């Protein structure tokens, strides 16, 4: 080998240089995300103008100018309207929400009996929270308590009439109590019923298949209001003379059947996504139909359609607000009913009440959708590529 002067070859590695200032830091972030091109800059300016126009108004209205406590409408009305606020004042009337908070939560439930729904709520939260946290053990017992024991306890506590508890008519129920109990029962009924309907729709027995298809497609084709009409106007006609059942129960049946049809389609999507090999594999192991479904198909299919199932739950939660049409008062209904309270009628009352109701609905729905995303990530096993 010939001797070469290798002095121009570097013998040690150069230290890593920091990234150039043009691609790091706030300035680069702004350049990349806000003013990447001329069009982008215009969009940013329009966006800033939009935010600058709307946001201060909202903050002003909801917090700075808002009235938080007060005995009656005078605190939320301008002088010209017979109140104490200066003319031209606009602000949220949280005093209205504050004064009516008990009603918004429980409706016209008798004041001295209100500990009962509150106790049910505490039990519900106490059972639901450990159910939702994956690390807490004894899920089976928890589920039995939540889905079988709690409804019975809740029924006894809320309706009363036994164990020395005075009877409370369901027509006195209202507010968030109605919203939550309708959606809880709706969820608990519609999921199993939806699964059965979906299996029926994929059944090889022609009559059962036809019945399921007709039911699902009919219910999906009509608005919930029509179903509620059906439940409130036609069910009494279907029963023998003298037999009648509670309006609350009728709404429950309507909402559950409606949600079940949508749930069936979601579950069917999951069933179709399971490869044929899984069914055949289960058959070759000698599993029966229900065993095959319970151990092999359903766990995979339901996992695939978690987002769809939760979307149906969210839809149902929002749809419970429609019971106002058959004159029951859920959260939205009771808020709206209170607009006509002469004691609180101001220009700001409707807006404040509705925004409060919207916030409560939003909190529940957003929570559900976020929890479903978390579950989806947690259960996402074996599908990663």
């Amino acid at each position: 080998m010939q001797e070469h002067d290798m002095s121009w070859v570097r013998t040690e590695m150069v230290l890593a240089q920091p990234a150039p200032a043009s691609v790091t830091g706030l300035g680069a972030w702004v350049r990349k995300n806000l003013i990447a091109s001329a069009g982008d800059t215009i969009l940013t300016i329009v966006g800033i103008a939009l935010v600058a126009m709307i946001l201060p108004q909202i903050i002003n209205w909801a917090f700075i100018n808002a009235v938080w406590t007060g005995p009656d409408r005078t605190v939320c009305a301008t002088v010209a309207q017979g109140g104490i606020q200066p003319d031209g004042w606009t602000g949220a009337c949280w005093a209205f929400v504050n004064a009516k908070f008990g009603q918004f939560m429980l409706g016209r439930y008798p004041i001295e009996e209100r500990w009962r729904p509150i106790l049910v709520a505490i039990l519900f939260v106490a059972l639901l929270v450990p159910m939702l946290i994956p690390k807490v053990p004894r899920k089976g017992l928890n589920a039995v308590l939540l889905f079988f024991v709690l409804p019975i306890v809740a029924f006894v506590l809320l309706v009363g009439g036994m164990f020395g508890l005075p009877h409370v008519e369901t027509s006195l129920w209202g507010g968030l109590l109605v919203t939550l109990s309708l959606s809880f029962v709706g969820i608990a009924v519609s999921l199993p019923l939806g699964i059965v309907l979906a299996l029926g729709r994929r059944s090889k027995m022609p009559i059962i298949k036809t019945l399921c298809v007709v039911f699902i497609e009919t219910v999906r084709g009509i608005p919930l209001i029509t179903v509620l009409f059906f439940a409130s106007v036609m069910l009494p006609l279907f029963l023998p003379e003298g037999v009648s059942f509670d309006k609350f129960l009728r709404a429950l049946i309507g909402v559950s059947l409606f949600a079940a049809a949508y749930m069936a389609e979601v579950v069917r999507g999951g069933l179709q996504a399971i490869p044929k090999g899984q069914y055949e594999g289960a058959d070759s192991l000698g599993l029966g139909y229900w065993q095959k479904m319970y151990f092999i198909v359903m766990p995979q299919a339901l996992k695939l359609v978690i987002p769809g199932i939760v979307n149906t739950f969210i839809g149902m939660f929002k749809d419970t607000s429609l019971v106002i049409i058959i004159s029951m008062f859920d959260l939205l209904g009771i808020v709206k009913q209170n607009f006509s309270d002469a004691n609180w009628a101001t220009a700001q009352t409707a807006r404040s009440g509705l925004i409060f109701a919207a916030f409560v609905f939003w909190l529940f729905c957003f929570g559900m959708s976020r929890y479903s995303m978390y579950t989806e990530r947690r259960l996402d096993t074996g599908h990663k590529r």
Partner: protein
Amino acid sequence: MASQEVLREEPSRGSFINDPKIRGIFFQVLVVVLLVAGVWWIAHNVIDNLTRLRIASGFGFLKGRAGFDISESAIAYSSDSTYGRAILVGLINTLIVAIVGIITATIIGFVIGIGRLSQNWLIRKICTVYVEVFRNIPPLLVIFFWYSGVLAVLPAPRDSIGLPFGSFLNQRGFYFPRAVWGDGSWLIFVALLVGIAMAWFVARKARQRQMATGQQFPVFWTSTALIVGLPLLAYALSGFPLSFDYPKQSTFNLTGGFQVRPEFLSLYLALSCYTAAFIAEIVRAGIRGVSAGQTEAAGALGLRSGSILRLVVVPQAMRIVIPPLTSQYLNLTKNSSLAIAIGYPDLTATAGTVLNQTGQAVEGVVIMMVIYLAISLLTSLVMNWFNAKMALVER
């Protein structure tokens, strides 16, 4: 269903109880018997109840005098009209709000959906907030918000808010100039139809020529010229027959012009805003569903970014978008039945009034169901046809 416990096709061993076919037949017969018994029992009860309440069944009541007024009607209607006509008025109102709402929701939805994919951080966040807010509150609440929270607290007609083009906004709704078509204005409509037909013809020819020779033809500008120019020409030829009736402010009310009532306005705005949030999510999913390789390959072929979007990304995204978009359109149509809560006379509201007045509960609910099912079916058919046209043609 338990009949499928054994799927192996083999002769039954021992007792016939274990034969899947026999069990299948048995269970189906059982279901049919139960169903028939249930329907019979219900029918029996219904007949009993109806005779007790002295209600004649059948659809004869549709010819009776309605006796109630409807605040908004696209066709001639008075309280002397028949029940059938009242339901027809409701149906037309439902269709009007559904069609206008679908168009607006699609436009807002596409803008917000594309905004959520924007490179611009601020625009992306604004669109996300919009979607997350409207997706998570009930549509009925949005309707009430527009109705009692916004429109009801607008100034009285005396202090109407003036808007451009001679339109006004106040408690009683939105007023804008009404077009008055004079003599000979039919010519304009004929010209419009001719223009559309010619534009379609030109587009077809241009496409054929491009397929055959590769030469392009400015279809868009030609079509615009035809569709806009021909009616304008007809307008000029027939002696400018169009005039406007402007709303005028008098002491207590606005007179003249065309009034859009707050009931319609709040229903329309609420349904559009609410459904747009869902459409935005669908559009976003559709565009993200087209793999980045498609965009890059199109770029490698030398297409400009506008052409990439128009010729490569959008046609593929549409395939993902159309089926869920159809169900959103159906949802909007079904949600229009919430009109009853604020007193806009849609199908559910008028049919509900008829139902209460006549006591014909069974017939009323059946009419509602049949009409909504028909609307759903028609929309599905149209969208399926459109979907089939857009579907991937594999060679």
